């Protein structure tokens, strides 16, 4: 079943130099396992291909039902150097929530995940 991240998580992003961070938090604690399994480092790197120049790091925070992603080279130099509208990476959060993941039907039903429309 196709599931949109925006239907199962919320997020906030910020910057450190030329790196944007995106914290993704499951809307329901039981959905954290879905984030952990399907929103992998590689999947996120692929999602942002062409938008960021460096690698992606992922950290797990099961205590907050959250994942933290570092998107390196995401801000056109960052801070005052950047010519981007989003020079401080404030809305990479919702850009990540555009991701659609493919969850096996049985698991999706068991967790009552909302299907992508």
């Amino acid at each position: 079943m196709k599931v949109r991240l925006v239907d199962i998580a919320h997020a906030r992003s910020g910057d450190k130099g030329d790196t944007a961070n995106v914290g993704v938090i499951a809307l329901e604690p039981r959905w954290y396992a879905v984030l952990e399994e399907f929103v992998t480092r590689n999947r996120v790197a692929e999602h942002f291909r062409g938008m960021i120049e460096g690698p992606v790091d992922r950290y797990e925070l099961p205590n907050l039902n959250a994942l933290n992603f570092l998107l390196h080279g995401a801000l056109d130099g960052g801070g005052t150097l950047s010519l981007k509208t989003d020079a401080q990476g404030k809305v990479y959060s919702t850009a990540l929530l555009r991701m659609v993941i493919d969850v096996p039907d049985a698991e999706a039903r068991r967790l009552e995940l909302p299907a992508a429309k």
Partner: protein
Amino acid sequence: MKKVVRVAGGQGFWGDDLDAPRRQVEGGPVDYLMLDYLAEVTMSILQKQKERDPSLGYARDFIGAMESVLPAVVERGVKVIANAGGVNPPACAAAVKAGAEKKGAKGALRIGVVSGDDLLGRIDQLIAAGHPLANMETGEPLSIVRDRVLSANAYIGSEPIVEALGKGANVVITGRSTDTALTMAPLRHEFGWGATSWDQLAAGIVAGHIIECGAQCSGGNCLYDWRSIPDLANVGYPLVDVKPDGTFVVTKHPKTGGRVSVQTVSEQLVYEMGDPHSYITPDVIADFTTIKVAPDGENRVLVSGIKGKPPTDKLKVSVAYRAGFKAVGTLVYAWPDALEKAEAADRILRERLERLGLSFERILSEFVGANATHGHLAGDQHNAPEVQLRFGVRGPDRAAVERFTREIAPLVLNGPPSVTGFAGGRPKVEEIVAYWPALIDKSVVKTKVDLIQ
């Protein structure tokens, strides 16, 4: 010893809600008011101001904020801690003192002034002594931009603030303190946490991280169920009620808008996060994977379980240096074919710049309304009702950037059709002051506390 100490966050950056500090001290009981004014590049702006006028170089909003909270400080014993000193904490203290005297509160303030973070005058000596101040991101030594450096400040921790409070200060003004130390220091002072009480110190840092961006933890900029967050016009700024063991409750004053929930606090916890296992500060390394957050009644969130470990022997240094010039110009194209027209204008502009022989370190064009923030993820926007072409250049040559700013307006008459939104005139050329993060041995940074009565 107090059973609970309440710290109120009243400012998340220089430019935040001017009235928030007053609302924080008048909305209910508060022990400490914490005001964070400094972002990464703020110090360089302040350094430029100090160059023009040696009595400036601090966050001037703080002077008005102090006047607005003066009755609470004088009559109710609220203490204020702020990194408003910028590159000139003594001048900031003098202005606060003068403001208080003007309001008839002569002698009521005991201002602790923390200095020692400013390394600008010591750079050559430090480099010569074997401290390369290498860029943490690129590894390059500071010497390559030495002649363009505007300011250099070490991020200092809680100790000098604790010292100032210990000497009886009721207002503490620092320069480049870490944002989180401003909250942790009064807790350390009140509860007598030792320099190796790692878990408590880490808890104080996490409390600081939660409130250092003002209302961003109490309903502001909150994506979770954002429509239902009440009365943001009267948003309540955050309070932390901390116990001696380091557990604390995040809340806000009654009869204020916004919301404090597990979700609003969690969003702030992940904001600007790096490796959550190691949130490094001068005092302690906090482990964000140990934080437990739980609902504790309406607009109350209980935070507990935080573990800390010893810090490194380095301090982070923020250096600001001149890094060339930039300008950004915009034009708006309307339906039909809005995006296609904006893309055509972009190609024409690039070709003209090339014909003029202008070269830049960087040219960036974005199509606002189509892909400026979400890139290709936004999908096909060729039927957009309007699209703004946002065209920016950056380079070392001011004249070239200046010449670029003359090339936007002509497109109105000699480029693609259905164009508008150029009323702002020519774009402004801006000098870029860039940020150079570095590390330095803790042992070479000596802080000092002066008490001004």
